[in-house]
């Protein structure tokens, strides 16, 4: 992981088959080995790959983890979810910067280290957390940061840092069929071969498995449709771009139950007739890469991947891992496919959906990590077994990633239908006031709604469950999420590109004590436009945190309003500061007094 000065560009490009569809992976490798992606590299890449430079620049400038300017030998990114803030992230970041005599967002004078924020890195149960050169370090406190600062000052290469720094415990607090029961690799595939492909699809249908990414589309329907769709090749894609702040259950599945996930993908491949699969792993989970590669290698050795799987003639399938590069939007399936094809992660126009027109415009199944894990269990144990768990509309179990104000944060596997109240008791959240279910794009529920249930028919969730106690300011929660969406908007459509920034500015205005009822109405108006006209789910839901908290915690907003009628859009006196400095004036007329 240590950065070298020289970058073997032709070697990297060759490793990715000179294929511009692998551009994100090529850029990742360049970034990882050189520390930057300099401008002249783009020209060389354009020649090596035979594509216009402008397309390479479009991709290189889209992803947060790519940068043309040096971030030094050590790039330290603090996770910026509200849960990190609640765990003292800002103070710790400042402490760390002071230890190293540096300012955030500015390369240290010796060119050694760069500190900044990054969107939630999937460690909310172990907040605050950070990435050092892309590798996660969790449960930060002053002692750990002292150690990191020392190692950086000593210029120790990352692979010589104490391994305990990078240990990430699973924190499975309540286990179930996915997280707690042994799985013999190949068990599901053997059952499938014995049962036959048609019958296997029928089992998935009978199980009534619905997508675990949040939307809840029926998995069997997706597989069947893709199976029927015509194409020169079919593809299986596992969406491991677990970017929703507060979610981390896929990290745990991949860290400790990867066989289950890969087996689910392989079963899907058999059903739809795919030879090639991809695991699109979010860049923040870089630390899992080697482990996952070795699981894949083990499966190839055991005849569970590759040619003639388990001796079945023509059952050929393999899986390649692609890493993301810091873009929440790539969790949207068509944006993910764009990213897999080496482009900026912008959602496509749908229909057609990926089941008919996905990767390389061929029929593609994209499912969440947990969906594939469930599928493997269903193929192994049968649909009836699965359908007996949970509720009729929401069968099986759901992994819930619990973080925030509770004693036992971590992953909990519940049968669908569990009440929020029960979860709060189990995780030791005695003073819970609100819960953000399914992350910023999900639903914020107040203490009045704790009898609601986790299920597609009530609270649908991709898994995040952030608990906020009475002492938390729900306005600040919403403001943090609003910043998140503005940062992650891909910029393709007008409402999301502009609307998320307008929301962010307005929330900041309120936070500065300069808001009015006019601003509240403005936000409602922007929400309406976002929900109605945005291109994808990110835009549709980007206003949810504000909508929900305004509705359920109006006090958090009202006490911030300076006056009811109107307040200027900008800080009048502050906007004179530069001119005061230039003229040296400080007289009465050089200020605009705040009206009472």
């Amino acid at each position, binding site marked *: 992981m240590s950065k070298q000065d020289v970058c073997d560009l032709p070697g990297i490009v060759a490793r990715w088959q000179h294929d511009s569809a692998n551009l994100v992976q090529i850029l990742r490798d360049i970034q990882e080995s050189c520390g930057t992606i300099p*401008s002249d590299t783009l020209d060389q890449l354009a020649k090596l790959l035979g594509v216009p430079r402008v397309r390479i620049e479009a991709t290189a400038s889209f992803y947060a983890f790519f940068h043309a300017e040096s971030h030094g030998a050590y790039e330290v990114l603090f996770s910026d979810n509200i849960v990190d803030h609640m765990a003292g992230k800002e103070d710790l970041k400042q402490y760390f910067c002071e230890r190293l005599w540096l300012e955030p967002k500015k390369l240290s004078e010796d060119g050694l280290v760069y500190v900044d924020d990054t969107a939630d890195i999937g460690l909310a149960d172990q907040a605050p957390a950070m990435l050092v050169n892309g590798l996660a370090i969790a449960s930060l406190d002053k002692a750990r940061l002292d150690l990191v600062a020392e190692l950086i000052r000593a210029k120790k290469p990352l692979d010589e840092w104490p391994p305990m720094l990078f240990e990430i415990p699973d924190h499975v607090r309540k286990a179930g069929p996915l997280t707690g029961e042994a799985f013999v690799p190949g068990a599901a595939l053997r059952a499938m071969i014995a049962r036959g492909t048609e019958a296997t699809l029928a089992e998935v249908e009978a199980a009534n498995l619905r997508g675990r990414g949040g939307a809840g589309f029926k998995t069997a329907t997706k597989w069947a449709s893709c199976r029927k769709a015509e194409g020169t090749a079919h593809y299986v894609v596992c969406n491991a771009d677990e970017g929703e702040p507060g979610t981390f259950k896929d990290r745990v599945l991949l860290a400790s139950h990867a066989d289950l996930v890969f087996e689910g993908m392989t079963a899907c491949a058999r059903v739809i007739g795919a030879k090639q699969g991809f695991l699109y792993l979010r860049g923040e989970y870089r630390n899992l890469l080697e482990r996952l590669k070795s699981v894949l290698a083990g499966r190839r050795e055991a005849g569970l991947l590759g040619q003639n799987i388990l001796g079945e003639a023509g059952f050929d399938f393999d899986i390649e891992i692609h890493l993301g590069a810091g873009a929440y939007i790539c969790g949207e399936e068509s944006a993910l496919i764009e990213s897999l094809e080496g482009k900026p992660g912008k959602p496509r126009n749908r229909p057609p959906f990926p089941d008919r027109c996905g990767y390389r415009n061929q029929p593609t199944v994209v499912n969440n990590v947990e969906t594939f894990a469930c599928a493997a269990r269903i193929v192994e144990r049968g649909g009836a077994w699965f359908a007996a768990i949970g509720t009729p509309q929401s069968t099986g179990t759901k992994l819930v990633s619990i973080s925030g104000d509770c004693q036992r944060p971590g992953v909990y596997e519940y049968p669908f239908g569990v009440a929020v109240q029960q979860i709060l008791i189990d995780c030791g959240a005695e003073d819970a006031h609100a819960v953000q279910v399914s992350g910023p794009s999900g639903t914020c529920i107040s203490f009045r709604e704790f009898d609601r249930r986790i299920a597609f028919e009530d609270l649908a969730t991709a898994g995040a469950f952030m608990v906020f106690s009475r002492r938390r300011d729900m306005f600040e929660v919403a403001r943090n999420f609003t910043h998140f969406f503005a940062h992650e908007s891909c*910029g393709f459509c007008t409402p999301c590109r502009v609307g998320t920034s307008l929301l962010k500015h307005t929330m900041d205005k309120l936070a500065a004590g300069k808001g009015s009822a006019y601003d509240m109405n403005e936000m409602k108006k922007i929400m309406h436009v976002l929900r109605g006209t945005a291109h994808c789910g990110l835009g549709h839901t980007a206003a949810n945190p504000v909508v929900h908290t305004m509705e359920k915690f109006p006090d958090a907003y009202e006490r911030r309003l300076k006056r009811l009628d109107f307040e200027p859009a900008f800080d009048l006196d502050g906007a004179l500061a530069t001119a005061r400095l230039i003229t040296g004036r400080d007289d009465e007329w050089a200020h605009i007094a705040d009206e009472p």
Partner: protein
Amino acid sequence: MSQTKTFSLDGRTIPFEEGETIMEAAAAAGVYIPHLCHHPEFKPHGSCKLCTVNIGGRLGAACTNRAAEGMQVESETEAINADRLALTQMLFVEGNHICPSCEKSGNCQLQAVAYHLGMLTPHFTHFYPSRDVDASHPDVLLERNRCILCELCVRASRDVDGKNVFGIGGRGIKARLIVNSASGRLADTDLSVTDRAAEVCPTGAIIRKRHGFTVPIGHRLYDRRDIAEAPVAGMEGPKRG
């Protein structure tokens, strides 16, 4: 020949051919749906969202949604036009659109759509972004302050000119028009003033040099005619029925 398929647009029966979008069918029938990123010569893009319509109770872009038999589409409703107005206002505050000093004024589609929607003010707080103007090319000026990221130039250069002169870099509110040269200068690309990409811009972001202000105020394309009645050249499409 099978019977002509139709759908309903604001109560009007619109014929369509299989595979046509709502926008294409409406244009062929002479019905205007506000739009900026759509152009009949290019693949539907669906980014500006001005053409949002209500399709059987669900909102969607007319330029990317295909017409279907019996579909009920609403376009000219108060609610939808309010959204369109808000989107247009967002485009205005996002950039630096100073119409009085713009060569494209009077012939600008952003302005014309705003007139059509009766926009009296950009309403939202202006971003006043700092954007580069590129005057390096001998014949073409690239004025990024006026860019609305519709990608028509990107599509024209790639799909018609076969040159890939333009692209979109960055993301979110920082998205920006980039050009295909290491220097980042338009002069160092192979753009020619005769390229489709050089004249397809709906605003004044890409304009021919030395051709500004040639038509007096009052005689320009949209001075007296609403864009709904005076669509830009090439936008009418074949009229049917």
